[in-house]
């Protein structure tokens, strides 16, 4: 289904703007620099390009305009007629035709001037030819600018037309002005049509949608029609006539029986009879509106007669459709949009009639056979005369009955509220259903703050239990504490005591020193450790300290020295060192210093290393050959990464072959011949 959406037409620029847009585009998108000294073919090409580019742009834009505006002959006759009524078909076609000729003319101009440019032998001549060409194209557009303005206005108006689908279920509302058509559509759909006391408030068609039996119906509100000869009708009335003429819809003819619209029932009946030819083959319902002002029964004799005449006509349409012969209710309905009395009934009647008619038509058409084949409702054939109703267990039936009774019996809080004065007067007691140990506590007020604390922070349902547990624990701990004895002081031996005192003394000394240092640190520069004799990290100091404690430092010193990384020339000195280490006494620091500087007598013990093929028991190799092979395999499969910083196979990628920023743009200074 084509959606008649005219909102997608692009904006039509005015003549002047059009010219500006195209010319500035030409100036921006074609090369701009040209000199007298260039080769003549280059000059010609430069200017020919401009002419062609301009022509192409004009062609493009004019083509979009011509293509996007709907052709009045190609769209549904309803829309064709509506557009004719609103915009005058001839004017519309002429405007589009002019745009078309303009497009062709511009094409011709471009062709001619490109031909002429081939004979241009100087820059000046080519330039003037280009200027003449562009100027001519622009004059063509200038001549056409009134059409452009007209088309822009048409486009703006078309975009606001309601999108009515002419083929789907539609209900059309018609009648005199001010009878209540717009109020009705406001009631049954979400369309927000303006309702005012003056006539011709609605000046164009409005569409709203409503649902009935899971189907969507379009409801179309029309401007009021006056009883005039056809030729005298103005554009607004013609809109509704067009809708009546072309749309296959259910028609609701509104009648104002109170006469408050300013027209009597006689006038309205006259209108009805003059347009009844438009009601052919359409389900027609006559709706008497404004029954709150004038009840239907109190109508005068003549008015009643007129209404009955109209009803007769409407009945004819019913019979003509092959529907039920005497469906009185479906033809003449009374309602009032103010009190909303009977509005839904009217809508339902209209939808029902329309649906029936459409279904009938579909059944009669040939296409139905394709659909019918796809439907099949299977009903089991009765085997015998035995009745087999639905089987519902007794319990379920009883439950259902009880539920129903209960629903009626139970008193809701809401009912209670309503009885006792309503929402603002009665406040429900929320504590009614509390479950407490003692029923009398229900209405008690709980304090919230006590002694500056929140009561709820201290509330705990298990508080008594917890108290018991705590007391138990407390009891246990007190017993334990009684068992504990003080170990401090009595069990130390004299040596230990001495050592303890020594340690404490030393610690206090360190602390004092640190304090002194800290206090004078800013005024006195600190000596780095390596130059500070007392604090250097040397093995001698370690040895001194150890011997002060009464231990033999030599082994420790050897080990420390052996592990030192700054040892060089191990091989030679090792034997010497080994020879010398046992004999030397590490205590004598000054003797050692110069010799160790030269020879580094202390050995460095090498970490144990193995030959490559040696089989270590835990590794899982059978023999040395296997291990060697395994090592080779590893080396082959894992290639060491090439860190020579040279390009390899994997480095060959071209991220973008022609990056845009390198190949476009003009240079302010310099040439673009090399990129």
């Amino acid at each position: 289904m084509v959606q008649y959406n005219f909102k997608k037409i692009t904006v039509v620029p005015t003549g002047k703007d059009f010219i500006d847009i195209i010319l500035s585009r030409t100036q921006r998108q074609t090369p701009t620099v040209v000199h007298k000294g260039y080769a003549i073919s280059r000059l010609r090409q430069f200017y020919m390009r401009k002419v062609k580019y301009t022509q192409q742009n004009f062609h493009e834009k004019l083509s979009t305009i011509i293509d996007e505006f709907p052709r009045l002959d190609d769209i549904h006759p309803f829309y064709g007629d509506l557009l004719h009524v609103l915009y005058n078909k001839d004017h519309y076609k002429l405007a589009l035709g002019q745009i078309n000729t303009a497009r062709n003319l511009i094409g011709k101009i471009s062709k001619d001037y490109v031909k002429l440019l081939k004979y241009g032998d100087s820059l000046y001549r080519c330039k003037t030819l280009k200027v003449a060409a562009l100027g001519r194209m622009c004059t063509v557009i200038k001549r056409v600018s009134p059409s452009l303005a007209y088309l822009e206005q048409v486009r703006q108006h078309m975009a606001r037309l309601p999108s009515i689908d002419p083929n789907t279920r539609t209900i059309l509302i018609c009648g005199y002005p001010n009878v209540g058509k717009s109020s009705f559509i406001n009631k049954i759909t979400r369309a927000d049509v303006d309702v005012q006391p003056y006539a011709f408030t609605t000046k164009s068609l409005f569409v709203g949608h409503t649902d009935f039996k899971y189907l969507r119906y379009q409801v179309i509100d029309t401007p009021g029609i006056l009883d005039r000869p056809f030729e005298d009708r103005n554009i607004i009335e013609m809109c509704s006539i067009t809708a009546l003429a072309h749309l296959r819809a259910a028609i609701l003819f509104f009648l104002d029986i109170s006469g408050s619209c300013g027209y009597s029932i006689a006038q309205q009946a006259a209108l009805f009879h003059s347009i009844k030819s438009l009601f052919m083959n359409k389900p027609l319902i006559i709706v008497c509106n404004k029954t709150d002002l004038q009840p239907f029964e109190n109508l005068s004799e003549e008015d009643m007669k007129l209404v009955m005449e109209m009803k007769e006509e409407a009945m004819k349409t019913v019979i003509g459709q092959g529907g039920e012969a005497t469906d009185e209710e479906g033809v003449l309905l009374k309602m009032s949009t103010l009190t909303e009395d009977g509005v839904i009934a009217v809508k339902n009647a209209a939808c029902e009639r329309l649906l029936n008619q459409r279904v009938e038509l579909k059944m009669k058409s040939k296409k139905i056979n394709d659909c019918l084949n796809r439907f099949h409702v299977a009903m089991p054939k009765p085997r015998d005369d035995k009745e087999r109703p639905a089987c519902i267990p007794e319990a379920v039936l009883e439950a259902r009955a009880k539920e129903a009774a209960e629903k009626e019996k139970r008193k809701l809080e809401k009912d209670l509220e309503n009885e006792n004065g309503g929402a603002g007067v009665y406040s429900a007691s929320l504590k009614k259903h509390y479950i407490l140990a003692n029923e009398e506590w229900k209405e008690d007020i709980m304090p919230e703050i006590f002694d500056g604390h929140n009561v709820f922070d201290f509330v705990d349902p298990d508080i008594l239990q917890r108290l018991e547990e705590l007391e138990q624990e407390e009891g246990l701990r007190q017993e334990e504490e009684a068992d504990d004895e003080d170990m401090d002081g009595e069990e130390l031996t004299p040596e230990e005591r001495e050592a303890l005192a020594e340690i404490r003394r030393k610690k206090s000394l360190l602390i004092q020193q640190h304090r002194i240092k800290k206090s004078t640190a800013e005024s006195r520069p600190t000596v780095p450790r390596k130059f500070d004799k007392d604090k250097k990290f040397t093995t001698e100091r370690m040895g001194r300290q150890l011997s002060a404690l009464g231990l033999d430092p030599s082994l420790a010193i050897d080990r420390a020295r052996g592990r030192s990384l700054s040892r060089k020339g191990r091989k030679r000195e090792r034997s010497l060192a080994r020879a010398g280490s046992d004999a030397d006494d590490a205590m004598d620091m000054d003797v050692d210093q110069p010799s160790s500087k030269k020879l580094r007598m202390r050995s460095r013990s090498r970490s144990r290393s193995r030959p490559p093929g040696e089989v270590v028991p835990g590794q899982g190799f059978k023999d040395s050959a296997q291990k060697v092979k395994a090592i080779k395999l590893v080396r082959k499969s894992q290639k060491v990464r090439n860190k020579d910083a040279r390009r390899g196979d994997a480095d060959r990628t071209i991220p973008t072959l022609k990056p845009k920023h390198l190949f476009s743009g003009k240079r302010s200074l310099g040439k673009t011949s090399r990129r």
Partner: protein
Amino acid sequence: PQGDYIELHRKRHGYRLDHHERKRKRDAREVHKRSAMAQKALGIKGKMFAKKRYAEKALMKKTLAMHEESSTRRKVEDEAHEGAVPAYLLDREATTRAKVLSNTVKQKRKEKAGKWDVPLPKVRPVAEDEMFKVLRSGKRKTKQWKRMVTKVTFVGPSFTRKPPKYERFIRPSGLRFTKAHVTHPELKCTFNLEIIGVKKNPNGPTYTSLGVITKGTIIEVNVSELGLVTPAGKVVWGKYAQVTNNPENDGCINAVLLV
């Protein structure tokens, strides 16, 4: 939204509370924005904008001047008539010294000078190398006797070329025109009329015979469109016109009818 939804909304809900204030302020700011743009816009955009603005300013000045005109009484100026003489010279007889020449003498002089009563009495002479382009021909391209016309030409409808081998002057078909835009000097309107022939090219008789049309050429055009009638009652269908532009530069022939 359908129909006039914007107006409907305005009718129902009115404007925003600060709408008018904001609108007023925005319009006041427009002035400053425009002037900023006028100062900052560069290049072709700036030039076009400046031109538009200048036109607007001129118009504005005129309207202001018009408004400032007051309907006060002004002194009426006493216009002196032609030949009015002050009182002390009244008695003298004025003598005019003018040479009276007869019409024939005048015409003879014009003929001698070569000036006619045409809109463009003098035109810039066109040199031969500007008019013709030398075409080399022959097996070794050494012969240079062929010439191609670089200006717009007119050849009649019954024109057939000479055999190409003997053709000395080549008039390319792309530069052949049949129609001219002829302006009537009194009616001031322009018609697109067919050319009947080239009467005279001021640069020389060779060009006339070739049918070359340059600025100042007299051409004969078919004016049956205009519906002119002689006093005798005969319909005029051919008239002379003078070309007023350079057709090879503009791609069209603009001429003025010689009435």
